[in-house]
């Protein structure tokens, strides 16, 4: 049984067997590598692909025929290996040879099931970090005795790290560039390996159990990956909708504060808003703090969308500009609001030297109550400043007199509100 994949070669579609595809891909890669010094490398590669396509078409016996490894090796032999090109080509320099040997592809972490005791985690890690697999195995074994850490790490890696299956993946695991020569070497090595594997080994009991474990973990791995995927989607949805709702809430809170009737707010807040809006500094503080709170919500929305779409929506430019704007807004918000709050507290009468009070006028008309608050400077003579030696107990200092807006119904049907300094209800009118 062989897996067949579809490829286009010289703009013709071919069905090709998996291993034939691997060989062909390696061949074309090494041709590209050989030609990289050439000015028209991509055009020449296209020419060669076109020529290969014509050859495969000539070999196609019927519509359903898939290109086999045998087809590929015949065609490749006719076309010649990249090394043969060099023999005929006068322009290929020694430098290309030299760079070719040093060049390596980017390493990726895979499980090396060709050299596995359990699932190839240790040998995969060893390839990745360029150390002897035995060392990694010893580390795993020793760390099992630290609360089973090694065992846990091994199981997690087994479930998460993919197995190196195709030839290209096996090369990516070793970080080697794929060339025909290396492929042939590896094939030879594998043949030797098969020979040694046929020898009777002491591991016979384990080798009987191993396939069972491998199957079990393959199934578990699928489950874990599925769960991770679901978790990703859920987290994405929560972040996206949570961020959006929070942003909407923030915007509506700000617009209520700034645009609508202030009667919806508690009295202290009303006054604070009035004072804030009355100066440039206050407006700066409000805008900056709005931006400061909006950006984290935007980030949450973007992270959520990234998780849902399984694609990173953050570009470097986007992240940097968001960060810069946030820092500027945060600094502005903090400094401006500290300065402004000082003024607000002063005006609210926290400062003893410059006290101001409120007068609340309550007009009861027909069915509803209309509160009208004004900040009025307190006349100097109203401030009780009797010296203690006068023998009279000093009156409590005038404290902030912003009182809540509830009202008490009097027996005669009228209403009285609270007023300072203790925010007690005013006395009911005598009947």
């Amino acid at each position, binding site marked *: 049984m062989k897996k067949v994949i579809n490829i286009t070669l010289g703009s013709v579609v071919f069905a090709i067997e998996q291993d034939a595809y691997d060989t062909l891909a390696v061949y074309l890669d090494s041709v590209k590598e050989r030609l990289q010094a050439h000015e028209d490398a991509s055009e020449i590669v296209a020419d060669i692909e*076109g020529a290969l396509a014509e050859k495969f078409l000539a070999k196609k016996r019927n519509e359903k025929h898939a290109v086999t490894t045998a087809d590929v090796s015949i065609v490749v032999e006719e076309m010649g290996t990249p090394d043969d090109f060099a023999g005929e080509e006068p322009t290929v320099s020694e430098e290309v040879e030299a760079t070719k040997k040093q060049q390596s592809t980017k390493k990726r972490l895979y499980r090396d099931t060709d050299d596995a005791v359990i699932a190839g985690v240790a040998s995969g890690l060893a390839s990745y970090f360029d150390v002897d697999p035995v060392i990694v195995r010893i580390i795993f074994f020793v760390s099992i005795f630290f609360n089973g850490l090694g065992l846990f790490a091994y199981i997690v890696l087994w479930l998460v790290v993919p197995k190196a299956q195709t030839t290209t993946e096996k090369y990516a695991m070793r970080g080697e560039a794929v060339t025909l020569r290396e492929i042939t070497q590896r094939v030879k090595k594998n043949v030797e390996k098969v020979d040694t594997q046929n020898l009777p080994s002491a591991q016979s009991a384990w080798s009987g159990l191993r396939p069972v474990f491998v199957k079990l973990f393959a199934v578990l791995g699928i489950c874990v990956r599925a769960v991770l995927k679901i978790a990703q989607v859920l987290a994405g949805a929560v972040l996206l909708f949570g961020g959006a709702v929070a942003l909407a809430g923030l915007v509506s809170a700000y617009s209520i504060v700034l645009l609508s009737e202030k009667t919806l707010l508690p009295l202290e807040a009303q006054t604070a808003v009035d004072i804030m809006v009355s100066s440039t500094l206050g407006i700066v503080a409000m805008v900056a703090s709005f931006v400061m709170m909006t950006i984290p919500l935007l980030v949450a929305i973007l992270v959520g969308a990234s998780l849902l779409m399984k694609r990173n929506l953050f570009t470097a430019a986007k992240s940097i500009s968001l960060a810069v704007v946030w820092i500027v807004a945060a600094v502005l918000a903090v400094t401006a609001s500290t300065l402004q709050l000082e003024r607000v507290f002063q005006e609210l009468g926290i400062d003893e030297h410059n006290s101001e009070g409120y007068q609340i006028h309550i007009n009861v008309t027909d069915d509803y109550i209309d509160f009208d608050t004004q900040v009025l400077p307190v006349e100097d003579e109203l401030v009780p400043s009797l010296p203690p030696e006068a023998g009279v107990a000093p009156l409590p200092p005038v404290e902030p007199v912003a009182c809540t807006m509830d009202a008490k119904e009097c027996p005669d049907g009228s209403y009285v509100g609270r007023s300072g300094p203790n925010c007690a209800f005013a006395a009911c009118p005598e009947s």
Partner: protein
Amino acid sequence: MSDTTHSFNIENAKSQMRKGFLEFPVLLIIGTSPTYAPDILKQLKEANLLVVEGTLYPLLSRMKRADLVSYTWEESKSGPPRKMYTITKEGKDVLAHLEESWRALDTSVNTLIKQYEKGN
């Protein structure tokens, strides 16, 4: 490529002889009439001038860059579109030079061969 050192040296010497020489027969073929790359290959193979086909494509690209040949795309009934190569005016000039120096080489090498055969 062969494994033994003996035949490898012969192969190497043969390929050294073909190096830098392949342009000439290719120009001759294209100069006769406009030709597709696969047909150029066929003629070269029949004349025993080319071992591996892959060599032709970098060579044609180099000659195209030097303005010795030009190509047009031709649709093909079965398969990818093909490049139809024709010789340029400059290509013809170069071909004339190459022909001249080939005749000179041919004469001198033949003289040497005759001299060698007489000696044995």
